[in-house]
């Protein structure tokens, strides 16, 4: 078992799942992060807000998990929207050219309200 150094807090808000992610997502734990996100989709929750204010580090492996969730949710007419992404998250998304893929909101409330 990999020593995980991110935390995920999931709040079920009826129409939307609010997922707060913080810490570090790299190649050593991206698979775990991916599993957690897949669990949400398995429960049939396809409208997801990821609050990424506390993410200190994310690599391309972490981005792939985000895109995989987006793909799954879009299939079911859902979406993945980001709230308060940290500077690191914004930078890595932009570096990957993926910044236009996710709608970004200033806080969780407005991201949740957008659904």
């Amino acid at each position: 078992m990999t020593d995980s150094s991110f935390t995920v807090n999931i709040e079920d808000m009826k129409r939307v799942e609010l997922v707060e992610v913080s810490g570090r997502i790299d190649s050593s734990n991206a698979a775990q992060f991916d599993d957690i996100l897949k669990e949400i989709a398995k429960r049939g929750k396809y409208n997801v807000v990821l609050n990424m204010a506390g993410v200190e580090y994310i690599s391309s492996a972490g981005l792939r998990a985000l895109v995989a969730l987006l793909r799954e949710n879009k299939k079911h007419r859902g979406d993945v929207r980001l709230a308060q992404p940290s500077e690191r998250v914004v930078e890595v998304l932009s570096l990957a050219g993926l910044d236009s893929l996710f709608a970004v909101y200033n806080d969780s409330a407005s991201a949740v309200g957008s659904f």
Partner: protein
Amino acid sequence: MAAQRRLTVPGRYPEIRKICEFVAASASEAGFDEDTVFHLELCCDEASTNIIEHAYGGEDVGAIDVTTIIDNATFTVTLQDSGRPFDPTAVPAPPDINNDLAAGLSTDELSQQLQVGGLGLHFIRNLMDEVYFTFDEDHGNTMVMVKYLQGKDV
């Protein structure tokens, strides 16, 4: 006077954290700001991931050897593995997402393309000042990444 440090870890995903910490410590010592230290960590994370995925084709196949050298003007990270030859020119560049989306690329297709990879290499090419790859029978793959020290002209 150059300062050199070396770390060897097994080619396993959890070990990548050690490589990042090692490189971050050397980069801080070289006087880089926090953003650049993050960039260097990210590049070493991506390069090590590529070694496990592509050169070794899985975990626990071989070791990853990391060397950092700080000299007057540059910070150099060298990653070595004993895996199969890795030809970075064979790795496709990631899709130009903004254009492709406009052209109607589905998220399905997009995700496929990201799986094929190249994203890590794209990060490295964008964030480092110089990148070199070599392969020989004795030493396997060697990847050299150079970042110019801040405030120094090379």
